[in-house]
């Protein structure tokens, strides 16, 4: 128990130190690296809390793709923070103190850390998820049961949030002028370094296969569509970084991305509509196979996880390509 507490305390200390360092830094590249560190430490904390799925997502999104996107944006703007006059910091500081104070006030009456008799533990919902999901849905990873079936409609909402973000970025950035050849800095292409080129070529298939593993293994262990989509996209981001954007665009053209982004959402909503047509409620996977609901649930969860993977991967790749494409065209 005491090592557990020690680990928690030290990880939280690192987390706070990182957060303070980020606020002090004016150099934005360094700050971005520290936000990646922040996410990594958060992911470690989630592992300690046995929330492995959350940790996995935090590691894939927070450390991986969002850092890359930050760097992509910084390449387009100045990488040093402008100095804010001190007097303009006071209102912001006041709001932060107020919000922080309210949180500290709230913590006093929250159930104690790790207690077994918290309202969340005692509520019948938790018991149902833990006990009956094996019977109702029949997959070992309860987190996937909750996300993809019990609260599958929320997950559809989250996917639509990502879809909206993708559409927004495409709408704002997709119509930059085409990059002209002489503006591309040849010396910046990493493919000229043999080690980088060979290693990334070797890594590529492993990254993509791992993404599929994460996607289809979500029923049994940590993983699922969101993480898989991000990992899949990061494979293409790596390819674009090493072999240049034009190379990546040849492998994964913009037109294909524009086709894949809505496809995932359509598949997810389509499953729900199919359930309705079969006489069930929206996203009631039981209706896919009324004779054996467990089979229906399996099929439904697999379909929606695939749908999530498609849209997430396509949106992440499209967002990265859009930012990177602007750098070439400047």
């Amino acid at each position, binding site marked *: 128990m005491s090592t557990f507490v020690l680990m928690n305390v030290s990880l939280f200390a690192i987390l706070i130190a990182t957060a303070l360092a980020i606020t002090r830094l004016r150099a934005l590249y360094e700050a971005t690296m520290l936000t990646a560190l922040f996410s990594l430490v958060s992911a470690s904390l989630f592992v300690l809390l046995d929330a492995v799925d959350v940790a996995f997502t935090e590691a894939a999104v927070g450390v991986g793709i969002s850092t890359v996107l930050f760097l992509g944006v910084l390449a387009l703007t100045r990488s040093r923070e402008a100095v804010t006059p001190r007097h303009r910091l006071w209102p912001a500081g006041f709001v932060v103190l107020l*919000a922080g104070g*309210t*949180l500290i*006030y*709230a*913590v*006093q*009456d*929250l*159930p104690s850390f790790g207690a077994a008799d*918290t*309202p*969340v*533990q*005692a*509520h*019948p*919902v*938790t018991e*149902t*998820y833990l006990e009956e999901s094996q019977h109702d849905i029949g997959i070992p990873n309860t987190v996937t049961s909750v996300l993809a*079936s*019990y*609260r*599958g*409609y*929320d997950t559809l*909402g*989250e996917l*639509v*949030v990502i*879809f*909206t*973000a993708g*559409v*927004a970025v*495409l*709408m*704002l950035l*997709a*119509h930059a002028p085409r990059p002209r050849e002489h503006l591309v800095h040849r010396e910046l292409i990493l493919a000229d370094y043999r080690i980088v080129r060979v290693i990334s070529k070797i890594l590529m298939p492993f990254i993509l296969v791992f993404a599929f593993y994460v996607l289809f293994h979500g029923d049994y262990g940590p993983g699922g569509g969101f993480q898989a989509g991000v990992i899949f996209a990061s494979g293409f981001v790596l390819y674009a970084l090493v072999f240049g954007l034009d190379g990546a665009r040849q492998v994964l053209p913009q037109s294909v991305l*524009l*086709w894949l*982004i*809505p*496809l995932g*959402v*359509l598949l997810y*909503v389509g499953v*729900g*509509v199919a359930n*309705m047509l079969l006489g*069930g*409620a*929206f*996203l*009631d*996977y*039981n*209706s896919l196979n009324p004779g054996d609901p467990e089979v229906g649930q399996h099929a439904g969860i697999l379909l929606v996880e695939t749908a999530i993977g498609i849209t997430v991967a396509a949106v992440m790749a499209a967002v990265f390509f859009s930012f990177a494409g602007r750098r070439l065209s400047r």
Partner: protein
Amino acid sequence: MTAQLPALQVIIPLLCAPFCVLLRSRTIAWLLFLAAAAGSLACAVVLAEQVSDGEVLSYSMGGWRAPYGIEYVISGFNTPVLLLVSTIAVIVAVYSRRSLAAEVDSKRIPLLYACFCLNLAGLLGIVATGDAFNAFVFLEIASLSSYALIAMGRRRRALLAAFQYLVVGSIGAIFILIGIGLAYGVTGTLNMADLAQRLPEIYGNRALSASVIFVFVGLAIKMAVFPLHSWLPDAYAEAPSAVSTFLAATSTKVAIYIFLRFAFTVFGATLVFGTLTLDRIGLLLACLAMVIGSGAACFQSDLKYLLAWSSVAQIGYIVAGFSLVTASGLEAAYLHVINHAVIKAALFGAAGLLLLRLGSVRLTDLAGFGRTMPWTFAAIVLAGLGLVGIPLTAGFVSKWALAMALIEDGQGLVLAVMLVSSLLALVYVGRVVEIGWFREPSPVIAASAVTATSATSRSSTAERLPRSMTVATWTLVLLSLYFGIDATLPATLAESAATALLGSGG
């Protein structure tokens, strides 16, 4: 099939959005948005019919009954908002085709319609849901799509307005999420009805009080209640006309609805208004919003900014209504939500017509526009009278209801502030009328009149305003007049809403 209506209400626009992206044709995307709006309106009408006798419909997403799964609840308190949002969506869909074609780069239009569909789905989802976290998810969909819609404005300043809204709105969203998280931590449930049942046992819990504060501060940002309104004027004024028309009529109204839903049917009025005295805070902020919003509107030099500041004031009226925590106050608030939505949409629609013809809505450029564009001028005057609250307009009906509710509760001071604000509204509407009718035509007007006459000689229809846009604007104007003369429909809806809110939980 009617059993599926609560879900279809939201699923139809949600399904249209990916098709807009997939098919990438301006006309098809527009048709899809129109179909989405018409479909959700049809659902809303049938649902309103079904719950008109006080029945409560519940729909279990995924077939998992609440609180294990996510539940949609249709009752008297949300049908008025569902009807309002989907009706405005249909009118804006008609309006948007020519308006967007004139203001937005044509390559972006299919994606813009996708954002419109997503925004509609998000707003309807917030209204229909009976699950606290699900409300947050759909709030995010609505917010994200509205940032993107605003950024499509014709000036570069639209990007800044959208970015400001994005930063402020995201802080609001995080506050709401923290609040919902705290409420989950002390109850173990996310279902609104289940929360309402479990929360009274733990009144006085500090985490619960903090949860209430976080949720309401977050929602106050989305509602643009006075000190948190700073994102609104730029966002509404810089957005494309069709977007301003839609957002001004719906987004803050939906935020107000979900605020009421949380206050009355989740946390309970005794905690929110009794212990945490949100009623007195609400009245104070409402008074400030009424005076400062109307006052600022008087000093604007751009018609769309003027209208946006007037919205800040009008939200004050609504906040004052529900802060009374009486049946008549809530009724007045709902009435004003409906009436102000219709009036403000009509005004933003008319502003879009001016923008299309004149290329600017700066008040100096508008001098004398009443002589060359008499019909648009008439629309602005009629809707503007509603904003002031002249008898026989919708604005009068809801302001009268609010005044009665204030008198009933003995809030003479608030009533006085409301009258001052109405006088200020007379000043800013009067200023537009004075500029539009009595000033000598500005060079912009004169130039547009010349091109119009020369165009008549060449081809008679080239320079005329698109009929779809004028029809949509006049539908809203006539609707606002109709609600002023015969207020049975909004009054019945508002009454059933107030009964449903006060009846459940409390």
